[in-house]
């Protein structure tokens, strides 16, 4: 056995140098984390940029974030400078030789999603994640994600406008995530992100006001990890049938978490809130993952994916 197992993964036709994908909304537009000494983009398979709409959006009034037991709520509200600005002013300055950058497309109508896809088509992003499950905007977002047919319509609208892989981010809040997965795959989705945040709220008992100005927010962090694993498990069968990869995510903070996600069926591993615990967690996670693979005589991350042992057929 080699001491360095192969951590590269193939995902929707792309080759990622590691299975770690930094999640949209946690890492700004790709450069913020380079502020931290010791940060290395080469630990990262891909960075998904902040959710982008056709026109600029200011985002929600504060408070936007609040800590909860083993997690946090957020309602940022898709603050972004608009797709054209991102393509013209941000993407040219990113270190594309160090890692890949993916867009995260948002809209209030299938037509707006399609226009965002068209704008990113002529850009160096290597894939486009479709956010049909943002819980924090009044129109679009999770409303598409909770209705499987609307979700599929968004993917259909975008598909003709881009040759890049489309990765649909599924909501854990929908009634039947496997059905949504099936419909978005049939509509042309090349990959799935599972899961987005759960919708939640918190109350300030002194003022009796919601802590988050938006009232509700997206719940993330280790508290949602069991839900994420189960949703991946539910999605895995339909995804595997169509040979569609899953970017598994939800509360991963260390190598043990990552192994659990891989075993259940995560072809790549999404890191979000975990960065707030430790911005340099990715290097440590990869070391731990390599140790695990060596200990189990596995030559690559890919061999681990979907290796869940169950008594049920």
């Amino acid at each position: 056995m080699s001491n360095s197992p192969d951590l590269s993964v193939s995902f929707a036709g792309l080759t990622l140098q590691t299975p770690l994908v930094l999640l949209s909304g946690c890492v700004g537009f790709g450069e913020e984390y380079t502020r931290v000494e010791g940060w290395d983009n080469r630990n990262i398979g891909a960075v998904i940029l902040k959710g982008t709409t056709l026109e600029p959006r200011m985002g929600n009034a504060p408070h936007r974030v609040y800590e909860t037991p083993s997690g946090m709520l957020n309602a940022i509200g898709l603050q972004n400078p608009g797709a054209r600005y991102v393509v013209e002013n941000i993407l040219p300055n990113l270190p594309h030789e160090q890692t890949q950058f993916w867009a995260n497309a948002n809209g209030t109508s299938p037509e707006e999603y399609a226009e965002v896809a068209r704008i990113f088509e002529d850009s160096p992003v290597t894939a486009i994640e479709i956010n049909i499950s943002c819980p924090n905007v009044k129109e679009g977002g999770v409303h598409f994600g909770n209705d499987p047919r609307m979700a599929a319509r968004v993917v259909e609208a975008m598909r003709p406008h881009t040759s890049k892989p489309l990765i649909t981010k599924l909501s854990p809040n929908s009634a039947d995530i496997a059905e949504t997965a099936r419909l978005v795959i049939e509509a042309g989705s090349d990959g799935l992100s599972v899961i987005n945040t759960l919708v939640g709220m918190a109350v300030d008992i002194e003022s009796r006001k919601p802590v988050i100005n938006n009232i509700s927010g997206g719940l993330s962090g280790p508290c949602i990890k069991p839900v994420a694993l189960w949703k991946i498990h539910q999605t895995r069968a339909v995804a595997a049938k169509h040979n569609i990869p899953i970017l598994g995510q939800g509360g991963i903070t260390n190598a043990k978490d990552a192994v659990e996600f891989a075993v259940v069926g995560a072809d790549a591993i999404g890191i979000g809130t975990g960065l707030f615990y430790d911005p340099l967690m990715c290097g440590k996670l990869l070391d731990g993952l390599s140790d695990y693979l060596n200990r189990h005589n596995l030559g690559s991350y890919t061999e681990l994916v979907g290796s869940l042992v169950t008594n049920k057929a």
Partner: protein
Amino acid sequence: MANHQGTIFEEQAEVLAHITHPGDQFVMRVKAPKTAAKAKPGQFVHLRVSDERALRRPISIMLTDPERGTVDLLYKAIGEGTRLLSERKVGDTIPMLGPIGEPFDLSDTSKRYILIGGGVGIPPMIFAADHLYGRGGDCVVFAGSEVEFPFALKPSATLLPGVNGNAILAIRSLEEREVPSRLASNAGLYGCYEGHVPNLARDYLAALSDEERKRCVLLSCGPHPMLHAVARVGREFDLPTFLSLEEHMACGIGGCAGCVVKTVENGEEKYRRVCVDGPVFPAELLPEFA
């Protein structure tokens, strides 16, 4: 953006001292040589208070000793996170990100910096005064608290214009360096100005000659009602005013846009990140304080 690369350090900060003061105030000295070497007044550190908590806590820097590699922090245990922090013992290590944020601009040697701090907003003022003292800068510190001040005090040997003679106490570490300071409190604390600290600063400014007052710049950190009052004083005397803000914060390095404040710049409303665009903002950009 590129010039910010590698400016924030993740250090395992060892607790060297942790002292409890009245009113749930704590002064903590940690060993964090990289932060100590680079930190500037107005910047903060982001502490992981417990392995179980998802979010770190931003705490402003009160003083650094670059030679010994130490960083001093003052905080109040007011919520669960800061309570967990207060349980850390000497010898413990705390994962610490820092230094973070745009510092106060203290570069203009023709100015007198009026440093107005309230409660846990006092530390950046101590740091700014220390920085200015080392560079021959001109400043006056006004600090307000409703509980006993968490540092040594001594009667001041200097008179300050406009300041009631009963307000005789000063912060000892500043007094010993001949940096003038005065204290304000509504809690009837001996030797303090009775009232809110912005009023104490206002009395001082009103007593200056027009010529002297024009040189003044207001820098402030503290609770929002206090910052509102400081902004009013700044407007009354038409003085540049800079406020250090706080907001619920997640990443602390600009990635999540969780900790925003509304600004108006060239007529355009924006949400700016308190962590890396701030925490210091010109009051004139902040509609909440305009």
